[in-house]
């Protein structure tokens, strides 16, 4: 065995692993250490959970934290569930061949490179009380002043945030579902049809189980992303309640250096939530797939 054959794999992996270990694992580890109060530059090397208890139970932060956690969980669950359901419905409606196919695939893909911050501002321009839809409603005589239009953005329930995520993630999930549907073809459904299965039965017992693994992985990605993303809630959210990533960045930019540990702790809590969910996904998908 030559030197190259013996060390081929580690050598090929080394540059990428260096980036991931130093920048990702290192960043995460250092953040964790700092959240535990480890900060040798100001002479603090004793580890403690003070920052965590301050966030979870302290008078100053706890109320905002729990409201923020609730908001973030609600926004992510709603965005994930709705984008999966809508994407499946759309993909089933537009799949197949014909001139519409290229267009529909293009429509799904066209949206992928639009940054989330642009999507958020776009939703603001369309759905705010003096936005495009409100003006359209006023032109049609449905409403007469901006305040007649329902408050859909910068609202306390995160509706604007959810709508912006749907605008972005429905096409993302849709691209994936469409690709899986195309690779499956219609054979299984044809067989089920010949055996007398109705539309709903074909979907429930044939199509859905076949696309479920892809839906689970796409849904996990959407949840993990939306739970930790900053841009959309920063543009479309309110001061209170505040999504956790927005709150974390506020802590971090706070001039008070003590808030740094709290910012790190809050970011670790955000990471813990997404990682718990991803771990759950890995347990769920184990049977059947490798």
């Amino acid at each position, binding site marked *: 065995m030559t030197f190259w054959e013996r060390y081929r794999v580690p050598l090929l992996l080394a540059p*990428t692993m260096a980036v991931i270990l130093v920048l990702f694992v290192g960043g995460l580890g250092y*953040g964790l250490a700092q959240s535990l109060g480890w900060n040798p530059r100001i002479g603090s090397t004793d580890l403690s959970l003070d920052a965590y208890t301050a966030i979870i139970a302290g008078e100053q932060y706890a109320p905002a934290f729990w409201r923020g956690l609730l908001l973030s969980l609600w926004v992510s669950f709603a965005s994930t569930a709705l984008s999966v359901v809508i994407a499946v419905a759309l993909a089933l409606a537009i799949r197949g061949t014909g001139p519409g196919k290229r267009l529909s695939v293009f429509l799904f893909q066209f949206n992928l490179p639009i940054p989330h911050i642009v999507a958020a501002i776009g939703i603001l321009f369309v759905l705010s009380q003096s936005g495009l839809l409100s003006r359209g409603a006023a032109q049609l005589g449905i409403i007469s002043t901006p305040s007649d239009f329902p408050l859909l953005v910068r609202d306390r329930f995160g509706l604007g945030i959810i709508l912006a995520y749907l605008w972005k993630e429905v096409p993302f999930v849709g691209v994936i579902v469409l690709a899986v549907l195309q690779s499956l073809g219609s054979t299984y459904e044809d067989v089920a049809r010949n055996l007398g299965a109705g539309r709903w039965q074909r979907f429930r017992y044939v199509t859905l189980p076949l696309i479920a693994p892809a839906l689970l992985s796409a849904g996990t990605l959407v949840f993990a992303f939306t739970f930790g993303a900053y841009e959309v809630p920063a543009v479309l959210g309110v001061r209170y309640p505040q999504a956790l990533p927005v709150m974390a960045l506020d802590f971090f930019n706070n001039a008070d250096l003590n808030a740094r540990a709290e910012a790190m702790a809050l970011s670790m809590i955000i990471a813990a939530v997404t990682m718990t969910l991803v771990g759950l996904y890995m347990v769920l998908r184990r049977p059947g797939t490798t």
Partner: protein
Amino acid sequence: MSGHGLNLRRYLVIVLMAGVLFLPFAAFALNAFAFRWFYPQFIPADFSLQAWERIFASNSRLGEALLNSTLIAVGVTLVSVIIGLPAARALGLYNFRGKRLVEFLVLAPTMVPPIVVSFGLSVNFIRWRLAGTLLGVGLVHLVPVMPYVVLTLAGVFANYNVDYEAQARSLGASPWRVLWHITLPAIFPGVVVAGLFAFLISWSQYVLTFLIGQGKIITMPVLLFSAAGGVDNANIAALALMFVGPALLILLVTSRYLGSGAAGGLARI
């Protein structure tokens, strides 16, 4: 005939979808060219180029932002593909001990929000004098980019036949010639898709740039985000169009490579 009904429904869905996807762009276009757009006008009564004159004025930071965004995104794309290719080859072609751990580590950055990683890194980047530099910002962009590049390319190598390389070598080709004439042409479409992902992820990155760039590195999303805090809708809309324009252009140029393979790459992650 039921076939016609089905087709009609399909086209209705497609038209509706196009409408929903298009609405924000209509709003950007109207806002960017509107002049005193009073409620409840649906189409502005007057149009002007004032917002565009402002963002292209000499005291505007648009040029600087476009240049920084381009330099960072191009650099990140090149570096991520160059270091990602060998890793993807190892993951796509070989079985080895610890492969699952390596795959997990490569995937991990997609599961942890960028904000978490950048908090921890920012302190060290200040110490290493990388904070507030283009190099520092480009380096942290590698974190969200690498998983997509490596997994896309690993998918390509999983369907790649190494025998061609052996044949070329046995005919006397040097390693560089094998790489240039055999390997690269075979994996080229995958490299384009991986590069596209890398460019787009870097191009749209706000939080990492803001935290590591410390306000000294102005990129397009940083400029747009600071404008979005204001009330000048025409200015915000013009900047948003300047920001998405290059991203859409790049997607258009590379779209013929984005077959179901790209969607498969996305679905894997």
